[in-house]
């Protein structure tokens, strides 16, 4: 499923991303790559706050939509 569908407290793993080009490069440099574990700290209409590699990222729905998780 998509990361944007994950609820608060979900622990999951990134399996794929549909982002391309610059958007993909940004995900890469922030550690949002396949195989990484994610902890969804908060999920609301504002977007999501996730914990990855010991850092917290706030991402909007458009970004979360491009990340496939399992």
């Amino acid at each position, binding site marked *: 499923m998509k990361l944007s569908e994950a609820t608060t407290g979900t*622990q999951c793993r990134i399996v794929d991303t549909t982002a*391309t*080009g*610059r*958007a*993909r*490069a*940004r*995900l*890469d*440099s*922030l*550690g949002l*790559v*396949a*195989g*990484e*574990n994610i*902890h969804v*700290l*908060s999920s*609301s*209409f*504002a*977007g999501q*706050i996730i*914990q*990855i*590699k*010991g*850092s*917290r*990222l*706030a*991402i*909007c729905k*458009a*970004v979360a939509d491009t990340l496939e998780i399992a």
Partner: protein
Amino acid sequence: MKRYALIGNPNAGKTTLFNELTGTSQHVGNWPGVTVEKKTGHLLKKFGESAEIVDLPGIYSLNAHSLEERISRDFILQEKPDVVIDIVEATNIERNLYLTCQIAELGVPMVVALNMMDEAQKEGDVIDCAVLSKELGVPVVPITAVKGEGVIELMETVGAQALVDAVSREASQPFHDGEDEHGHGFHDTEDPAEHRADHHTDDKGRTNALISEFKYHNHYHGPMVYQPSADAPLTDEQEHENAQRRYDFISGVVGKSVSKGKAAGEFNSSDKADKVLTHKIWGIPLFLLIMFAMFHCTFSENFLFLGLDIPSPGVWLQGLAESFIEWFGGLLEPLFVEGSWAQGLVIDGIIGGVGSVLSFLPQILVLFFFLTLLEDMGYMARAAFIMDRLLRKFGLSGKSFVPMLMGFGCSVPALMACRTMENEEDRKMTLFLTPFMSCGARAPIFLVFAGAFFAAHADFIVFCLYLFGILVAILTGLLLKKLVFKGEVTPLIIELPRYRAPRAKSVGLSLWKTMKDYVTRAGTIIFLMSIVIWFFSTFNGHMEMVDIDESMLAAAGNFIAPIFSPLGFGFWTAGVALITGFAAKEAVIGTMGVLAKVGEEEALEGGALDATVLGAMGFTPLSSFAFMVFSLLYVPCFAALATLKREYNSWKWALIQAAYSIVVAWVCAFLVFQVGSLLGLA
């Protein structure tokens, strides 16, 4: 002289270390040809021999997708700093090492400064720097930049590294007996490209050392990756493969050298604070409350609503500054012949003009103090996230928020801050809207007028004006989105740094910078303007000293005054003040001070620009409100306009912005005055 470059992720503590290393010897300029800020400074003596420190922009990677990334990459490859100091956040080591790998791949002499060791220890993380260093193949020095711990050791390592490199570069021994022998210079006769091809390139053309650039390479043990060349940028697939290979390498390195104190997913105190501060319901009201508290502490005459006539710290400090300037003026007064032109120039012109502007310095510092505090504590990134959803509705992204918030301080740095936005359309939009955020220089206008006519509710009126500026920006944003910038808004990804206690040193330095800028402007632009205004207000066309209402300035003011008649302030003093406000918004009040001869008034009554003085000019409460609205919105000052031009890289958009804001200002002030009159408020 040696030159060291500082590089690292945003929030890794790069600025803190830079401040620690250079103290106040900082020089802020621009990178050549572009408008990204370049900070340089001199290494303090206690840290070693004389060296220049160059602070590179905070970045997450060297992929060259953004301007900052390109600048950093080009600087390292072309300017060849003696050593690159890479700041890595210990509590966020895996992600930070990604950039480390990319720097090391360039083959540069480098040292990793593992920062925030104290926080890592608090979390229970144990990091074995010796193992980390060995696995990476790059020297690692643990530091806690905030406390200055480990910085001397860091600079010793950096100095030694620079020395080693110099020696090994000069050494012309044949080298490379075995694979483990990295970190060497080149034999003059050996072609670096050939050396790379022979020893550091795999069958797919991937490399782990761009040695040709430096005629040197470090001991880096990282994976072989594709490197872009001028004529062949990397494909998506290559870049992605690089990323995967680097992260695999990093996982291995971190696995051997770090033991985490907390299991993944366990909450730390920062996460707990975020539960409240970024709450889906409470986040926005809390944010507004914080903003209001900030303005209340800066502008309120009735601190904490106690009704005890206790002023807020901002108002109180401003009072002190005013008394000081008055005392200073009084001290100079006897030195001049009563009624002479010299007395007019110094007392009325310079002390009156520059003094009125300087007296607001304390309040601007208080406002900046709070903004810096919030930034330093890590709240600003949350604010961007909280506001993202809302701003998205108006065609902006949460990233527009920080520049716009900075706009409350000063439009010039705020416009410059827009450079961090990756999307060109978002950036142009934000540039257009930022001047509507009421800058610190406009505050004196509100303070004087609201203080004179609405003393009991001054803080509320000022707050409303700030909100009104935001409203105009929002409506303008919607308009632009409909007509001009129709593209999609860039999706937001923003790192939320850990909440931290604010640091006296960084807040202090930032305030010092603000103060220096403000005082410099008061001493230059405002000083000159004060003299010019005094000249035009004292002489008529025949170079005769006349009363102000027969002066050249009055003529100019009279000429444009009719434009302002429907707004309720169609008299020459207002016209003149607004003309001078284009040079710098502070000058509006400075000019009023000169025009009202407040210097003398003060001596007589002990009051500054109050309701009586302004009333004598022709202001009523309603027209003063219209005047405040007009001042809030009409053209950015000359400095801001010049910055707009530079950031847009064309006069077209800067001039459109200026013309648009004059029209909007006129219409809004017109509505305020006319509707107010109809309601019988005049």
